């Protein structure tokens, strides 16, 4: 009996093996196709930043040129738009991260009344469509006549939608934080402020940096909320929007590519840093 059963089982397992092999590679091939699909538009953006368009439409490949990169600010308005976007993103990410870190500290460290409400208030802006965020701020600013639409209204809006992201990012790291380290510092005579500065701060610094980068990225990319609250000021996404109506110049692709490269380099850098740190710890 068993002498018959053995070859049958072996055969089946061979069949199963081939099936598993195929299935294994089907998934890999599919995943590679998926990444090709995901990266295709990015490749288009990069490639067309080197295009030499004859008409005003940068849709069809005409020929290679460095000119767009050399004259990255060769389109009227693009330079001031980039500067405004950088200013807003820098200030908004700093303020939002500071406010968000304080909220995260309160939420993770302390039990207090109103915790659930606070959590809700953090969660709601994340789950509200951007157009509603932008529209409601617009109706507020329409009624606050002493504050004209412009730099300040854009900044206020950006800080608002960045806070929740900062809280979520910092909170995620704080949860795994060993509080005994702080207690030890206090036992050794440090007061709350010194403990915070010498112990807490260095430990949560990576989380704060991550929140800063995330807020910066979200702010510099924002179109919808800004569109509703910018008045006559033009950030880079608004510039792209305006340009798209009459045919976006290749300089738009140049700036898009530059932002992409810088962001990816930053991410890779922080990843390498983490990996090295992970190695040092083990």
């Amino acid at each position, binding site marked *: 009996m068993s002498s018959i059963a053995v070859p049958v089982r072996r055969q089946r397992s061979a069949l199963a093996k081939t099936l598993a092999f195929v*299935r294994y590679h089907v*998934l*890999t091939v*599919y*995943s590679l196709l*998926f*990444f090709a*699909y*995901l*990266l*295709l*538009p*990015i490749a*288009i*953006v990069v490639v*067309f930043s080197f295009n030499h368009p004859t008409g005003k439409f940068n*849709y069809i490949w005409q020929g290679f040129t460095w000119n767009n990169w050399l004259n990255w600010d060769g389109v009227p308005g693009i330079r001031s738009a980039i500067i405004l976007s950088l200013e807003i993103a820098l200030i908004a990410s700093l303020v939002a991260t500071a*406010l*968000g870190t*304080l909220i995260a500290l*309160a939420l993770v460290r*302390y039990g*207090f009344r109103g915790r659930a409400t*606070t*959590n809700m*208030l*953090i*969660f709601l*802006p994340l*789950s*509200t*469509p951007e*157009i*509603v*965020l932008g*529209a*409601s*701020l617009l*109706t*507020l600013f329409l009624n606050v006549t002493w504050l004209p639409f412009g730099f300040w209204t854009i900044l*206020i809006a950006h800080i*608002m939608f960045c*806070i*929740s992201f900062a809280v979520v990012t910092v909170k995620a790291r704080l949860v795994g934080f060993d509080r005994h380290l702080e207690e030890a510092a206090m036992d050794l005579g440090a007061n*709350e402020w010194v403990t915070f500065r010498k112990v807490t701060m260095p430990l949560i610094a990576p989380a704060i940096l991550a929140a800063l980068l995330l807020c910066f*990225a979200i702010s510099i*990319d924002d*179109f919808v909320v800004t569109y*509703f609250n910018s008045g006559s000021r033009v950030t880079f*996404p608004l510039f*792209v929007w305006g340009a*798209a109506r009459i045919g976006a110049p290749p300089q*738009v692709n140049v700036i*898009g590519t530059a*932002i*992409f490269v810088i*962001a*990816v380099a930053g*991410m890779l850098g922080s990843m390498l840093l983490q*990996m090295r740190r992970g190695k040092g710890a083990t």
Partner: protein
Amino acid sequence: MNFFHRHRGLTPYLLLAPGIAWLAVFFVVPLGYLAYQSLQSGNIDFGYAFTWSWGNYWHAIRDYRAQFVRSLEYAGIATALALVISYPVAYWIAFRGGRWKNLLLLFIVAPFFVTYLIRTLAWETILSDNGFVVNTLQSLHLLGSDGRLLATSTAVVTGITYNFLPFMALPLYVSLEQIDHSLIEAAEDLYASKVHAFLRVTLPLSLPGVVAGTLLTFIPAAGDFINAQLLGSPENHMIGNVIQSKFLELTDYPAAASMSFILMAAILVAVFAYARAIGTEQLTGTAV
């Protein structure tokens, strides 16, 4: 000894105060203003007055029903597509990624590093009338010789699906990553086939990710107007396009405000319907 020691109970509130105040003044209060505005009547030249004008809501639904329905439809299709497209990849990274996991995740979020509008314009290039995709489809006779992709609902849904894909893929990955592999091995030890083990163990355990991804994709997708504007024609306009033009071009604030509220209500209804279908525990499990 110092202020903090004497008022320990106060510390959390002091930490919360600035951020929460910001959100209260610039998130909660504006929603109140939006509600107030939505019940006004009048026009920009003679001013608006608060008149409990509920008619704004009825008119919005009567006149723009098609756009509301289209928004939910496009967002629903795009969300389903994103789920189907990205689940296998999230699975692949979670179970086979090995030491490349972080790098592969970086690929997943790579689209976010290109300005939203610019990547949508890239789709405009890809789907353009003389582009590679249209030419291929035409030569395969899948598209008529004068057929086009731009300015169709296909283009708009394609754009939405692509733009919000990372919102779907990341939560899927997180929930798949957390699955204890010994559970799947146990199922296989107990003679479950691979397919069975997937359907009975892996899939249910990844449901929180499915729910989170669906919500994160559906909510922004339903309010989007950029894809419809850049890739569609007026026939593909979503409610976001109407709200945007009423606010910023036609200055019909009360109508636009009431539509914003209807959009939010519609999204809430859709989310709750979804939550009922899939079980509220899953929803609250991820929301907290």
